[in-house]
């Protein structure tokens, strides 16, 4: 059954690589694999360290940016003098109108 009907074609392949070429290729790939294996533990170690350092850096920058972004631009005033008490009684519109008042119009305390 094996190959039945294809005897006239045979088992040749339409490729032209010679045995000598393949010997060279096999030697190259074999030595390449051996080099890769012997180099890989150290190489992998450094790749891991570099990846971890890069990840930490990115996380650090990300956290910093997030913290910076979440900080409110408004400053909480923690004073409670008479001027502040007066300002607290004003509406936003009244505060907006303050620059148009004459100095005499502002009550004294």
């Amino acid at each position, binding site marked *: 059954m094996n190959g039945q*009907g*294809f005897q006239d*074609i045979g088992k040749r*392949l339409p490729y032209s690589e010679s045995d000598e070429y*393949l010997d060279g290729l*096999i030697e190259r790939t074999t030595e390449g694999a*051996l080099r890769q294996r012997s180099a890989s533990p150290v190489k992998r170690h450094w790749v891991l360290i570099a990846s971890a350092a890069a990840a930490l850096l990115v996380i650090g920058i990300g956290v910093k940016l997030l913290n910076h972004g979440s900080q409110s631009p408004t400053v909480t005033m923690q004073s409670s003098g008479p001027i502040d008490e007066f300002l607290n009684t004003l509406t936003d519109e009244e505060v907006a109108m303050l620059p148009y008042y004459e100095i005499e119009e502002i009550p004294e305390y």
Partner: protein
Amino acid sequence: MTTKTDDIALQQMLHDPTQRDEGFRKLMRQYGHALYWHIRRIVVGHDDAEDVMQETCVRILNSIGSYKGEGPLMMWIYRIATNEALQHLRRQTHLFQSIDSLSDALSSKLQAENPLDGNEVEMIFQQALLTLPTQQRIAFNMRYYDELSYEDISRITGKSVNTLKTNYHYATQRIKSYLKEHSSR
């Protein structure tokens, strides 16, 4: 193909850290040609075959510890090479595309790499093989070119012997009809 004794001696070398590199060289010298042609028949292009050959070598070397001598060494390295070649084909597909859909691309590659004075019948035969579903084509190649038994092909592909026999039968029918259709042109 090596004898069982060769396999045992090789296996001992591969499991001995002081002899592993030399054992690996010996393994590749022994099976390298067969491995290259097996890969080449799957991926078709020479450059692809060279890439897969390199990946297979690395994989064999890194997996030597997991080979416990359950079967012949050749079957074990053929299995690794088959998986690497299939992975290589998968990388050439788009999302959700089957590797079977690569047959046109592989066929073009075959034509591009074939010397102009190449044997026409051999070419048509190769084109016929490329019309087979990939797994069927791989099994056919191992049976036809490497003359492996169905049991050995079963060890490599993980398919049952009966499935392989049926597939081989269908593959030969399909190739014959392709040859009949294209040789008479």
